[in-house]
Every structure is written in structure tokens, then in C-alpha cells.
């Protein structure tokens, strides 16, 4: 699962570099003429989630992304999504479903050539998720094999749970066609607080993914987004 994510990420980075190398000569203007810089709202969709949903049974998810340029290098950014996943561990099997929202800022650290609008950025997010788990089945864990425990079909529902956390993001967006961007983003997450279920644990949280034992998490997305120019400035 993680290896697959990493592989998809590497492939996507490679694809973007090839796409990006074709770009420079498209909109070249003479130095004396001022370059158009557009300030717009960019709306995107994470295309990795439908692919994962297709490849893995019992996994559903989608994510919308958006960002709004508010100064030369700064963008207000948001992600919004839904997930419904089935997870199997050694001694238990559970489903988690819920929604998440992430709000924050990206800082574009990439120096564009005139007329180009690519990004290599870092950023931060505050994220919130509300979700529920269903413990489908479990097998009581006993050492030794003298008595073998039978699996218990619990079907216990843990409702009204929530979590909020912080993310550090790193990503890039490449304009492949006018106003159409391919992007990829990696995020490192640190939990602030969770509402834990009774006699169970938030092992997976929509938007946060697997909750590692030190309350850390990782995630990525691969987006196709469209920029709607709102204001055009010339400089």
C-alpha cells in the first residue's frame, strides 16, 4: 500500500518533469512588454483516490482541492474530501468512513520565468475530520495455542468521532495546458487531538490516513486542477 503510493508519487513527478520541459517557449514575450500575472482561483480534483478505489476493493474516496493566490508568492489553500475504507489488521477488521477539510497557506518557492506559472511550494494546513468506525470482526488475542479463540462478528459501531491536526505540505504544480495544472503534494501530519471511541482506537482517520503510534501521519495527492483567472496584473 505505502510502496504503491511511493511508486505513484515517483511516476507522477517524472510525468510532470517531462510535461514541464515542453513549456518554456509557449508564451514568450519581449522584455520591454509587461508580463501578465494572473491572480485566480484554482480548483482541482485528486485523481489518485479514484484510481486507488478502482484497484482496491472496499475503498472509496474523493478529494477536491482549491487555492487562491492572494499575493505574489502566497496562496490560500484548501482540501475537502470523503473516504470510506476497510482495513484489516492481524486480530481485527474494521471500516472507517467520514469527511475532512483542510485549510492553510502555500508559499511558492519557485522562481518562474516570465509568463510561466509553475510552483514548487511548501505550506501548512489545519485539518478537521469527522468520521465513524465499524468494528466488523475481531479475534481475542491469547498467546499459546492450547485454546484457539473463535473470531467474533462484532459489528460494533463507533459514531460521532472527530479529530484535528496540523500538516506540513510539500508539492508542485505544473501548468501543462493554459490554465490546466498537474500537481502532486506530500504531507506530514501531526495530530492535535482526537475524540477516541470507547474500547477501540482511531487507527485510521479520513484525511489523516493511518494513525501511527507517535500520532504522526503521511499522505499524498495527485491533482488535476483548472485555474479560473480573476484579476490579471501586469508587471
Amino acid at each position: 500500500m505505502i510502496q504503491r503510493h511511493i511508486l505513484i508519487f515517483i511516476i507522477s513527478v517524472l510525468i510532470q518533469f517531462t510535461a514541464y520541459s515542453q513549456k518554456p517557449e509557449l508564451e514568450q514575450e519581449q522584455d520591454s512588454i509587461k508580463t501578465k500575472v494572473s491572480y485566480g482561483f484554482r480548483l482541482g480534483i485528486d485523481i489518485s483516490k479514484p484510481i486507488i478505489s478502482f484497484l482496491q476493493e472496499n475503498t472509496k474516496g474523493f478529494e477536491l482541492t482549491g487555492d487562491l493566490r492572494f499575493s505574489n508568492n502566497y496562496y490560500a489553500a484548501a482540501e475537502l474530501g470523503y473516504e470510506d475504507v476497510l482495513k484489516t489488521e492481524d486480530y481485527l477488521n474494521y471500516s472507517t468512513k467520514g469527511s475532512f477539510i483542510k485549510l492553510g497557506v502555500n508559499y511558492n518557492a519557485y522562481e518562474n520565468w516570465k509568463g510561466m506559472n509553475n510552483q514548487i511550494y511548501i505550506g501548512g494546513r489545519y485539518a478537521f475530520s469527522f468520521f465513524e468506525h465499524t468494528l466488523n470482526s475481531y479475534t481475542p488475542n491469547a498467546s499459546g495455542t492450547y485454546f484457539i479463540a473463535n473470531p467474533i462478528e462484532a459489528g460494533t459501531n463507533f459514531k460521532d468521532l472527530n479529530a484535528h491536526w496540523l500538516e506540513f505540505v510539500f508539492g508542485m504544480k505544473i501548468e501543462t495546458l493554459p490554465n490546466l495544472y498537474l500537481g502532486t503534494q506530500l504531507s506530514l501530519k501531526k495530530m492535535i487531538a482526537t475524540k477516541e471511541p470507547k474500547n477501540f482506537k482511531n487507527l485510521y482517520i479520513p484525511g489523516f490516513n493511518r494513525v501511527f503510534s507517535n500520532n504522526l501521519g503521511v499522505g499524498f495527492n495527485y491533482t488535476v486542477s483548472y485555474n479560473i483567472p480573476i484579476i490579471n496584473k501586469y508587471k
Partner: protein
Amino acid sequence: MKKYFTLIVLSLTLVLSCEKDDICLENTTPNLILKFYDFEKDTIVKKVLIDSIKAIDNAIIEGYTKKTLDSILIPLDLNEFKTVYKISSGGKSDTIYFSYGRNDVFVSRSCGYKTIFENLKIDSFTNNWIKSYNINNTTINNDTTAHINIYH
């Protein structure tokens, strides 16, 4: 930008490599501990020569044959609310009928749930070598202290 990338790859490796919740290290379902005392002087531990220990309809527990011990650690049936053990000592056999309630408690991702036994009772026992008993703790939630004293 390369600096950032190195940083991210490093932290990812750290996060993903050695995850302690991948391996179950916590205590799971506890066993029942019986400790043997002298019937005459009930504060004095008196060792027992164990010929064999077995649950009814099950095999002899390995490691408990022809041994002189002051206490034994035996598992309870997780699928039932009672377990019957036959303990043989010095050519005599005694059967003990244990009954209990079960409560499954979440431990961790890799350990899953463990079973805690509650309201532990001895419904009946035969007294060929066992003379009497005392239940110290009706809840079995650890493997460290004796739950039942057996006097012989």
C-alpha cells in the same frame, strides 16, 4: 528546494521504517494462576509434584509433566464461560470446574483485543489430593499474581 526534499524523504523514512505498533508487545489475554499451599499451615507454600494437567477434551499441557512446582499458569477457554481441568499429582487426579464471565478489552492495533475474565468461580472440585481452595481475585486481568490458592 533540494534541502526540503531531503528533509521530507528523511522524515518519511523515519515515520515509516520502525513502527512499534506493527508488532504486538503488550500483554494479551492473561492466564489463570494457581498457587499451592499447605492445608495444615495455610500460609506456607507447599510444592506439588505434577504428573499432568489437561483440560477436559484437550491435550496434556506441555511443560507440566513430572514437575515439582509451587504454582501453575493455565489458560482458560476463550470461547466458553467454563473450563474444566484435570490435575494429576502423585498418582491421584482431581477435577476442577471453573466458571467465569468474559470481557474483551482493546489493547492496540497489532495486539487487537484481549479477554479479561470476571466473576471467577470454582463450581465444584473433587478432593483426592486437593483439600480446599481460596479465590484471591475474581478478576483475571494480569499474569503476575496468583488468582486462586489451592490447599493440599
